[in-house]
């Protein structure tokens, strides 16, 4: 992770803080960032491509202050991909936007860590997004 961006000379910039986070191996991929716990610091959602498990690291600068497996993500299977972490319901906490290989889209809202000191977290509300019929009627659309 690189932090503290600053312009150093006209047209040039640098990040003055750099640190390596823990390495969970090559099957884990950081997919998106967003503030899941509402502390005004972005967190990281990771996805493991050999069992479809999603995980969230709650961040405090260069430190991972807590890590959670996301309950239910592995059961969705490899056709669902976490593609964004945004606040979709206006509660100042990030939600997960999923997209299936079929084009279907779903949103998981209301991050709930725990219970207790456990390492699994869940999302209290999970919705399939039903789009308007697109102009072509075909699955050419991708959420960016």
């Amino acid at each position, binding site marked *: *992770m*690189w*932090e*503290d*961006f*600053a*312009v*150093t000379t006209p*047209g*040039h*910039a*640098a*990040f003055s803080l*750099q640190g390596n986070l823990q390495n969970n191996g090559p099957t884990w991929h*950081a*997919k*998106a*960032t*967003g503030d899941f716990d509402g*502390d*005004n*610091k*972005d*967190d*990281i959602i990771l996805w493991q491509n050999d069992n479809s498990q999603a995980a969230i690291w709650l*961040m*405090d*600068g*260069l430190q991972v202050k807590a890590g959670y497996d996301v309950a239910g993500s592995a059961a969705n299977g490899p056709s669902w991909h976490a593609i964004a972490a945004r606040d979709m319901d206006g509660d100042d906490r990030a939600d997960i936007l999923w997209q299936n290989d079929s084009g279907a889209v779903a949103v998981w809202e209301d991050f709930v860590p725990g219970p207790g000191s456990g390492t699994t977290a869940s999302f209290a509300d999970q919705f399939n997004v039903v789009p308007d019929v697109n102009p072509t009627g075909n699955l050419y659309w991708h959420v960016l």
Partner: protein
Amino acid sequence: MGHTVFAIRPILLQHDDGHLTLWLMQDATHIGSTVAVDQNPGAPWKPLVGDFNGDG
């Protein structure tokens, strides 16, 4: 001090060789200035942007 605050989010681009460049946006469709990041993480590294320390 030492932090640049952007009214409109800048756009981060990465070259095939790994170099990073920021477009500091004047508005939604116009680039105000271009800033090259002097450090290069290398081509195998792909950036994800976020405010992880809450400094805005």
